[in-house]
């Protein structure tokens, strides 16, 4: 396998870069009724606490912060924009109806991601009952638009090609392998966060992730073999 795409500097998820830059609504920028502080500066944990107390502005901002990462993860798991929107909407509803159950002192995002993951699995299973293959074999990208952002055309094209190959290969991995690769390599979650989302011991994350990476590599090699003349 030849993987000579130039390695770039520290990469961050697009969502993390754009987080907090979204169009602010009047309710979200208004001072919190419960805390009397600027909500935009609040952490997710603080917003959860204030939302539980009935602060509607905090709830609105929490929804705006969470819905995009929820959609992004749903998209990466479902590989279809319409399904991803369904899953994200369901997950957001579940997220807000279970705010009281989020452990104090624990980060909020893994809780949200666990809900998204469970909703995605539910929907995939329902789809598999009706449709044997959830991902159309002739459309490995599933209608998902990958956005290229590199400034150099050559490196951009080369990397974009590798990104497309990896994205297509992911579709043919097992659900478990795909999940852990998405959480680590697309969502950039820590091992501890992955363990929380997948509800597995932290000590098994590394071995499971490595097996998934090997499976991805084998899939890419297989794809090269089948596409060669």
């Amino acid at each position: 396998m030849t993987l000579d795409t130039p390695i770039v500097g520290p990469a961050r998820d697009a969502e993390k870069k754009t987080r907090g830059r979204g169009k602010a609504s009047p309710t979200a920028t208004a001072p919190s009724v419960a805390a009397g502080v600027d909500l935009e500066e609040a952490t997710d944990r603080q917003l959860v606490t204030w939302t539980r107390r009935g602060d509607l502005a905090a709830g609105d901002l929490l929804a705006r912060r969470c819905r995009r990462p929820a959609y992004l993860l749903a998209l990466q798991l479902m590989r279809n924009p319409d399904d991803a929107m369904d899953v994200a909407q369901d997950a957001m509803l579940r997220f807000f109806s279970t705010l009281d159950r989020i452990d104090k002192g624990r980060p909020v995002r893994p809780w949200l991601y666990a809900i998204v993951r469970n909703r995605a699995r539910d929907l995939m299973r329902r789809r598999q009952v009706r449709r044997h293959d959830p991902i159309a074999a002739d459309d490995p990208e599933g209608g998902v638009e990958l956005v290229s952002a590199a400034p150099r055309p050559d490196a951009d094209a080369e990397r974009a090609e590798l990104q497309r190959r990896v994205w297509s290969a992911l579709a043919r991995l097992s659900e478990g392998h795909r999940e852990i690769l998405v959480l680590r390599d697309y969502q950039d979650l820590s091992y501890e966060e992955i363990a929380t989302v997948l509800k597995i011991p932290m000590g098994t994350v590394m071995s499971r992730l490595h097996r998934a990476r090997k499976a991805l590599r084998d899939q890419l090699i297989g794809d090269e073999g089948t596409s060669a003349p």
Partner: protein
Amino acid sequence: MTDRTQHPTASAPCGRRFAEELLSGYLDGALTQGDRQRVRLHLEDCPDCRARFQEMTTLREATMTTRFAIPADDQWDETPRGALSLWSRRLGWALVVTWAAGLACFLLWQIAAGPESLLEKTVIFGGILGVVLLFISVLSDRLRAIPTDRYTQVHK
């Protein structure tokens, strides 16, 4: 984290006694200082594992730099209902249905016990029965559609 670098694994690229999964831990910065040092030394000494690690690094960079099109903000104007809203609506519906059923039973009993003739009672009960059957038909269709109707869960 315990020292796992010397545990035998059959799948290590070099075939040596090396826990290959540590390459992933090394890539992700998830190893202890001791394990990190051992992996680093192994990579310096082992071209096979070094090549594998380079592949892993390249693949990870490819995935981490992948960007996805996200719906515009104006498509996100729907805010999920809160739990209070959902439960109050369910309770409200239950109370309204109970009240309507009770009221209907009372009125029907009043008509049945009233002085109207049998023909008049038949016409009244027939009309009421027709309306009730139509209502049940619509209600059952609606209830069947709820599980797949995501718009019941959002504010417009």
